[in-house]
């Protein structure tokens, strides 16, 4: 059963067709990578899934319901979580409070449960020792990890990550891969990623976007072998 799907989803920015009639289908439990050159429309596409960006045409379905016109916060309420391509955290608040804000929305007023979740999450992203630091004082990589932690704190059904490993150090990327692999038991993941190593090691399935259209879809091996993809994307990397 697919958790998320789109029909003819399109976005037009004043004449520029950023996403053009994309049919997309994401089965529950899958780790899907969304790849494609810069400007292919990946961010715009997931923006329309999360409700951050209004679509021009087409439909989005989540768990069988049409959510096309639904405001973003309600989609998150249905079990989506979203991390931004450009890190977006509460930089003047503590690391702890950042995660708490994410956890509280899902868990509610149960403080002991919120604390438990925060501890769990900070462990996973290796920020336990920095819980009391101001988030804006963290290194860039740690800020990225914090934002991922905020996503995890929501125990999402669908976790959308827009280029999460951008700016992470080598060892942080390895940790991230482990994190995503461990997540696959409980969460469906949609991962925009430029680092092909990360893609090959995490994804069960890959969608390639080019000029706002689906260029190819398949398993990592199929995509690696695909000539068109090589020409459009992999060759350039």
């Amino acid at each position: 059963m697919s958790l998320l799907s789109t029909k003819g989803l399109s976005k037009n920015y004043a004449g520029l067709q950023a996403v053009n009639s994309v049919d997309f289908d994401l089965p529950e439990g899958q780790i899907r990578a969304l790849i494609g050159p810069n400007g292919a429309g990946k961010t715009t596409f997931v923006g329309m899934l999360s409700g951050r960006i209004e679509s021009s045409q087409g439909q989005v379905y989540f768990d069988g319901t049409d959510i096309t016109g639904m405001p973003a916060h309600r989609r998150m309420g249905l079990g989506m979580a979203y991390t931004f391509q450009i890190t977006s955290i509460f930089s003047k608040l503590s690391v702890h409070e950042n995660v708490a804000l994410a956890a509280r929305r899902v868990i509610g007023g149960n403080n002991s449960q919120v604390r438990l979740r925060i501890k769990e999450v900070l462990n996973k992203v290796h920020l336990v020792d920095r819980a009391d630091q101001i988030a804006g004082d963290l290194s860039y990589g740690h800020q990225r990890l914090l934002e991922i932690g905020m996503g995890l704190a929501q125990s999402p059904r669908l976790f959308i990550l827009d280029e999460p490993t951008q700016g992470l150090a080598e060892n942080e990327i390895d940790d991230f891969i482990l994190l995503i692999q461990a997540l696959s038991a409980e969460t469906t993941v949609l991962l925009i990623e430029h680092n092909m190593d990360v893609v090959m090691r995490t994804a069960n399935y890959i969608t390639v976007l080019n000029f706002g259209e689906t260029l190819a879809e398949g398993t990592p091996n199929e995509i690696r072998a695909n000539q068109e993809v090589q020409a459009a994307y992999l060759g350039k990397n």
Partner: protein
Amino acid sequence: MSTAVRSSILHLSVLCLLATLFFILPEYHSGNIARILIMAVYAMGYNLLFGYTGLLSLGHALFFASGMYGLGLSIDHLGLSAAPAMLVGLFSALAISTIIGFLALRTSGVAFMIVTLMFAQAGYLTILLAGKYTRGDEGFVIKQSDRIIAGIDLSQADNRYFAALILFAIVFIFIGILVNTRFGKTLVAIRENSERARMLGYDIQRHKLIAIIISGSLSGVAGAAYALLFGYAGATFSTVQYSIYPLLWVLLGGAGTTIGPLIGTVFMTYLIDISSEYTSAYMLIAGLVLILLTLFAPQGLAGVLRKKFLPWLP
């Protein structure tokens, strides 16, 4: 000591200090402080929206005046006694802030400032136009016999002082608790990064609307209490000046702190009071101090305290 305990001790100490001041200070000052306490309630209401939610309104005088006239007119024309008239004041401000919030939240940033300013101007003009009932600029006096709650004559200096202090204490503690709730922390999240808060699943518009309603209602309670304790309602209180005051008090005292509004109101009132003894250009001095503060302590006095000495300050 946990943050919650420290902050409770701080809040209670402030209240004890204020209670003690009445017995120490000469009568002139106790009258002054009663006024300051009511204005600090107004500032605390304003601070919830500006300091905690990050919404800058230039029209809060409308909410203050709604409370003031809700009380004043219902005493004057409907013959209500003080206690129910207070409730009319509260509910007028609540109703008006709900409507204004609903409309003004279609905008944001500078547009929000202008829209709230315009609504407040419209309120001011309405008060002038309805001069038959409100007696316009001149205003009207609320008779001593109408300023009695539960047999306590609020025109008496001591009663007035403690009535002001009780109202201040209720709102002070209420805000202290509110900003530590889930709702209060979400407001701060919206102030800090509303797009991130939205994408965590928070309904930003709903939170902002509730913040406006609480903020406006507290402002209205302050307006009603002012009319009741000082026996006067007038259109001056709905002018732009009275929308700017709470902004200045909060900026001076420290936006987004529970104690800031009180500090700012005390500081500014005495600044004007003392400097006007020496020069007629006292607003110039007030302006100068404000400029200096924004340059050297943009977080306000309580903000500096928090940064330098008391990082746990709520």
